[in-house]
């Protein structure tokens, strides 16, 4: 009889422990979902998208950086937004012009809501030389020796502005920088430019066009 009572008490204790455990434990589920990204504006708000001249901060011989930037952005934005994009020739004197609201508000002839895409750009090339310790590849791959190497380095810096054509206000502004070095001493400015602007375009579109990014979060049950 005593043994039975002891056994029954043990069962009660186990049930009690089970309830305490279920009260105390916290369970959750991990969910992968598209989290909204804060974008500065939407191209849908505007009737017209206009690419204007870019202010070059330096010059590279036989390479019209302004023309290349205008053509590239006109094409890429047209493809990405599926909207008609026009180019506009606007002489730019210095960097202060981007902050001149009156200037930009007066340019647009029509009464439509438009957006100007413009900015200043610097495209540089230089040759970098260095002495490095590297393997003697052809003679003896297991021995290291000092070697003189030369690389052609290209860098592209863009201060990008998106300006409201009605008010002249800057609705988006950000600086971008890309650089890349090439072993090929005959690497051309054209080829390197398209390499750099492609990387830059990815960042720009991620900033102004991507609305959602997949991320993981925990949803808690209790």
């Amino acid at each position, binding site marked *: 009889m005593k043994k039975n009572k002891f056994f029954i008490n043990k069962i009660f204790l186990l049930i009690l422990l089970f309830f305490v455990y279920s*009260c105390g434990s916290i369970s959750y589920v991990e969910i992968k979902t598209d989290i909204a990204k804060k974008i500065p504006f939407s191209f849908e708000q505007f009737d017209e998208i206009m690419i204007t001249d870019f202010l070059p901060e330096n010059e590279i011989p036989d390479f019209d950086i302004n023309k290349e930037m205008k053509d590239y952005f006109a094409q890429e934005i047209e493809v990405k937004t599926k909207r008609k994009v026009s180019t506009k020739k606007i002489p730019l004197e210095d960097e202060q012009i981007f902050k001149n609201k009156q200037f930009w508000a007066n340019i647009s002839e029509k009464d439509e809501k438009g957006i100007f895409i413009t900015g200043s750009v610097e495209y540089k090339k230089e040759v970098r030389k260095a002495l490095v310790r590297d393997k003697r590849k052809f003679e003896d791959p297991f021995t290291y020796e000092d070697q003189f190497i030369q690389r052609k380095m290209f860098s592209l810096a863009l201060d990008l502005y998106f300006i409201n054509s009605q008010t002249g206000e800057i609705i988006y502004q950000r600086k971008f920088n890309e650089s890349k070095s090439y072993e090929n001493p005959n690497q051309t400015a054209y080829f390197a430019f398209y390499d750099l602007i492609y990387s830059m375009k990815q960042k720009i579109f991620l900033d102004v066009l991507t609305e959602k990014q997949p991320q993981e979060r925990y949803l808690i049950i209790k």
Partner: protein
Amino acid sequence: MSIKINALWTLLILLLFMTQCAVHHTESQIQFGIEAAQHDLWDEAIFRWEKVIQSNPNSAAAHNNLAVAYERKGDFKKAEMEYEKALQLSPKDEQIQSNYQKFKEKITAKKKEEISDEKK
């Protein structure tokens, strides 16, 4: 004496069972919200979790889940408020801390990228 002990045990278990029932109702609403979220029905999920908070304002789980839902919909101010509330209620919860950390990183990452590009 042994009858009294058994009666006490029974009473304790009944009390725990009743508590579990009350908790179960809140949990079922939270669970319903989670299932809605897993099916991409975030408005329904928000409705369920807000209902939980009305009856149980100290539910860290409901506040955390609401924060995730607001983040998903792009309402970052509300998301931050709900995360902070959840952390106040359950400061040691690792999942809430992880969610809030990722939320903050997302906001500051963009600012750091902008600063780094400007410095180059």
